[in-house]
């Protein structure tokens, strides 16, 4: 990632920004789908009932925490792997 000059770096940064936006939208829609699938299975009512709403709040909460934890561990492992160079990354 180094070896880019200033203008290349700017172009790279703007692409990363767009990518982040896209990733966020994907994460959002995956979250909706997961929590909908896991929490909403009863269609005898038209709007969400209490139980479903509680489930959805917990679902979002838990998944955010889980993905934060996975991210932490991932960064650690990735850094360790880069350092040992076992996958050719230098």
């Amino acid at each position, binding site marked *: 990632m180094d070896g880019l000059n200033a*203008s*290349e770096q700017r172009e790279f940064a703007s692409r990363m920004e767009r990518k982040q936006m896209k990733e966020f939208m994907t994460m959002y829609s995956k979250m909706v789908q997961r929590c909908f699938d896991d929490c909403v299975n009863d269609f005898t009512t038209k709007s969400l009932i209490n139980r479903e709403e509680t489930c959805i709040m917990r679902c979002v909460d838990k998944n955010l925490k889980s993905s934060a934890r*996975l991210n932490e561990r991932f960064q650690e492992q990735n850094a360790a*792997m880069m350092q040992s160079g076992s996958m050719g990354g230098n």
Partner: protein
Amino acid sequence: MSFLFGGAPKMSSAEKIAAAETEVEMISDMFNRLTESCTKKCIPADYREGDLNKGESVCLDRCVSKFFDVNIKVSEKMQGEANANKQGGGMGFM
């Protein structure tokens, strides 16, 4: 990915940016796949509480560790296979 070819000599701006982008792409793709697998394996779909409990946390930590182990094992195995093919003069898949 310059490291695959031993630091390619002259690359154009577009090529360098594309290479950097590919590297980020690979890492973020790996993270997304890991998230998908480890969530499925460690987080039960009955949300009894919003927090991660002890068991889920430990499961996630170990899941990441094993995911990396599998990556390394597969890469070593495939590299070994490719080398064996090169030496035998057979047609490798790479």
